[in-house]
């Protein structure tokens, strides 16, 4: 009985941790817009966590620069299971206009499996909410698969 309740809870209170892996700040602003009164992602239970230990969903923006690569991977490792990795914008998937630069170590899927990609440069808040809702659903599936 409790297992089912806890499984359902996984989809209803996903906490986000946002990592900026060399992003231009465009996607970061759009993510903040999602939490403002106009879009209010908190009504779906989304909340920005202060530390990776509290997070369920890791949101990565930016093309993963050489400087940030180790930090991003280490932060993702610190998130307790079940966790979902979401890429925000085009950069983490394709490196976007930064592709080929000497300082870019991306894309992110060279290092960790990605569950949801939100496309756009920068993505619209509606797209971000859609992607995060999908991530919450995946989170529940991962929780059900645990144990």
């Amino acid at each position: 009985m409790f297992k089912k309740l806890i499984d359902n809870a996984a989809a209803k209170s996903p906490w986000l941790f946002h990592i900026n892996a060399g992003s231009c700040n465009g996607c970061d602003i759009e993510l903040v817009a999602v939490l403002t009164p106009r879009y209010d992602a908190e009504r779906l239970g989304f909340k920005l966590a202060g530390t990776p230990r509290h997070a369920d969903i890791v949101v990565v923006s930016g093309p993963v620069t050489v400087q940030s690569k180790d930090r991003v991977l280490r932060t993702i490792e610190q998130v307790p299971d079940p966790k979902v990795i979401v890429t925000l914008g085009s950069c983490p998937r394709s490196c976007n206009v930064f592709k080929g630069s000497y300082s870019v170590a991306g894309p992110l899927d060279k290092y960790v499996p990605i569950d949801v990609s939100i496309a756009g440069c920068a993505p619209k808040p509606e797209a971000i909410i859609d992607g995060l809702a999908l991530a919450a659903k995946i989170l529940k599936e991962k929780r059900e698969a645990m144990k």
Partner: protein
Amino acid sequence: MEFTDILIYAVYILIFPGALFTCLFGLWLAGVDRKVVARMQKRKGPPISQPAWDFLKLCGKETVIPAHAARGVYLAAPYIGLASLIVTVLFIPLGGLQAFSTGADTVVILYLLTIPTLAMIFGGSASGSPFAGVGASRTMVSIMAYELPFILVILAVGKGMTPDGYYFTFSLEQITNVQSVFGPNIFDWRLLPAAVAMLLVIPCEVGQHPFDVGEAETEICEGPLVEYSGKPLAVFKLSHAIKMFVMTALFCALFLGGITTGMLWLDVVLALCFCTAVTLVSMTLLNAISARWRVEQLFKFFWTVVSGLALASLLLVWFC
């Protein structure tokens, strides 16, 4: 002790007003707080059941124990804090229903209420994270800040109850009895500054927004909670919700007690309504309209303005 007595105490401790009810009502209060804050900011806000979902979700997460942590203290701290909060509830009369009564309830409550905060400090220090260290020291500062006005308020209420003769009590039962004769303390003009001081002590003790220097998530990654995950974190979040209930119930016992309708269950429901109202006035309102204070601002405010209000009340009940 008769068997029925043991049964009644078991119900008091485990179901009402002990563990089960306290947890549920605390989570409900936290949900109402989040919803009303959202409405005040023109948001739709999470459902009222959101803190309960958060708690259940955290129960289902992996518990990570850092390599540098002192394992025993790290894992025991949240449960000790929760247990002492539930014990505190048993000493607070809820519309005349008080599970345990001693001659010095308020002193017992004063001591029991420091344990959850101390548990947080110990747990945070045991995690070995520098963020937790900073958070623990900040939490200590906030304890020192609110304890002084809190004690002054309790002294003022204990002293100021009877107009005839010198009378002084630490017993919440007596405080409630006197209020049922002379009317709630909040209508006593001499105790009004103390009531205001208490309304400001509540958010600081709970760790709500303008006074949450110890758990500042944007500065020091939630302070003592930085390394916690899974069930221990769930218990800390639950303790936070229960603290809201404990502090508002204490306010109701000190200032809004003794309102009787003749039926016990109606009195209890009335007391719970008062608890919700006090939550909205003292915590939600401040939470929605203010930004976090710096540590020294908090300390200065509590030792001058809030302590001043409480001291004014104490002097008034002594000399008027």
